[in-house]
């Protein structure tokens, strides 16, 4: 008996629905993630960072926070997420097959040292609200690259949704305010580094999705994500930590790193970050195969208004009026995309 069109349509709707559920969950966890990420800068040893001061202090702190994030996330995701889903062995199988694994290595390079580190210094130099808002642009980078690399299909409504999200992002970002900030002689030294970090995060996250999906084409999302973090942890430990240590001073750097490792408040908030930001990644990797990279990144852009609300609730950071306006526009963009879901075809990519 051939299945009727109605139940086939229902199954497809189910797939899209789950894609959206994972995306929204990702946005909520991502937004919440800015709480531990902000606190990390304010706890021992970074609250009173004695090894380096001034700009060097911020940069070294950024390197240690971003690198530790990769290491802790790798451990938590491998034990908790891959373990919970019974896919620990799958992770190992994915890791050792380099033809698959190499795409997760590329994803880790863009997502880690470029995006996470960039976002970390944007939080340190400018603030979490700004860092979260500029990360919105990763949706646009990802969508355009997905179009270029995989000919992902976009309907007119998807394009309209992306444009609305972009407009919302720009309003939140407030380029006029940004220019004032950079050109203001009274602005803190090196504030431009914060903006540069923000741009790194947008480009890095956008590209990460495009390369991760190459691996996800043939592997399971739950088991691939810990592999991506394992690669990132290895990049930090084997390459970036030693390089920064040589530049910044070997003894001081490793002393600072050790101080972070042995600070219980630092490690506690890092594990909290793993359960918010790390888990947001798990849901994001589940989305890519279901609804495509461009659509996932655009939908998860909802994290920014969420982050702004969360930062207000936890730290009493009152956002500027343009941030409210931008958030409303971004939410409108999401709804435009959701209404498009009926016309999403069977495959997310163009036929070959």
């Amino acid at each position, binding site marked *: *008996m*051939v*299945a*009727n069109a109605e*139940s*086939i349509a*229902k*199954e497809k709707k189910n*797939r899209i629905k789950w894609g959206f559920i994972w995306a929204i969950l990702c946005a909520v966890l991502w937004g919440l993630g800015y709480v531990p990420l902000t606190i990390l800068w304010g706890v021992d040893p970074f609250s009173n960072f004695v090894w380096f001061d001034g700009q060097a202090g911020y940069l070294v702190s950024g390197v240690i926070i971003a690198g530790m994030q990769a290491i802790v996330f790798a451990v938590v995701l491998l034990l908790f997420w891959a373990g919970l889903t*019974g896919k620990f062995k*799958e992770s*190992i*199988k*994915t890791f*050792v*097959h380099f*033809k*698959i694994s190499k795409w997760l290595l590329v994803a880790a390079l863009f997502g880690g040292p470029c995006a996470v580190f960039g976002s970390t210094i944007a939080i340190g130099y400018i603030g979490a609200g700004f860092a979260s808002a500029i990360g919105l642009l990763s949706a646009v980078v990802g969508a355009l690259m997905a179009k270029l690399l995989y000919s992902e299909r976009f309907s007119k409504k998807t394009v309209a949704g992306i444009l609305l999200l972009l407009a919302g992002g720009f309003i939140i970002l407030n380029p006029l305010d940004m220019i004032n900030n950079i050109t203001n002689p009274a602005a803190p030294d090196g504030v431009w580094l914060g903006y540069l970090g923000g741009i790194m995060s947008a480009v890095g996250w956008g590209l990460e999705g495009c390369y991760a999906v190459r691996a*996800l*084409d*043939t*592997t*399971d999302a739950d*088991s691939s994500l810990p592999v991506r973090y394992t690669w990132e942890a290895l990049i930090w430990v084997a390459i970036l930590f030693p390089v920064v240590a040589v530049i910044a001073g070997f003894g001081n750097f490793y002393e600072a790193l050790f101080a972070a490792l042995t600070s219980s408040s630092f490690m506690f908030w890092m594990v909290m970050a793993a359960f918010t930001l790390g888990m947001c990644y798990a849901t994001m990797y589940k989305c890519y*195969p*279901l609804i495509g990279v461009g659509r996932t990144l655009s939908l998860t852009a909802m994290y920014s208004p969420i982050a702004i609300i969360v930062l207000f609730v936890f730290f009493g950071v009152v956002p500027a009026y343009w941030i409210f306006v931008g958030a409303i526009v971004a939410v409108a963009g999401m709804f435009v995309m959701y209404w498009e879901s009926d016309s999403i075809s*069977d*495959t*997310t*990519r163009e*036929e*070959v």
Partner: protein
Amino acid sequence: MDLPYKSQILKLFKEDREMWEYEAAEKLMKKNGISSDYWKWNSRFWLMELSVAGFIVAVDTAEDDGAHFAKGKVLSKYKLTERGLQTIETMLED
């Protein structure tokens, strides 16, 4: 070491170009000596992902009478696409 399950299930389509999803799932589980509802449903999910990526395409459907996954579910018969074959040859073979 064996390929991850999702890679293996795609590769199975190089031998049998067309398979019902429950056939592919059974073949994968038999090959790996696993048998549980968990991996059976995971297999079905992977096949759906693979079809979304355009590696396999549904050429026939049937309604599950409860014998395979659950009553009322749509069963798909998948066929390997040209892109799927390319992916197997570039990513999953030495």
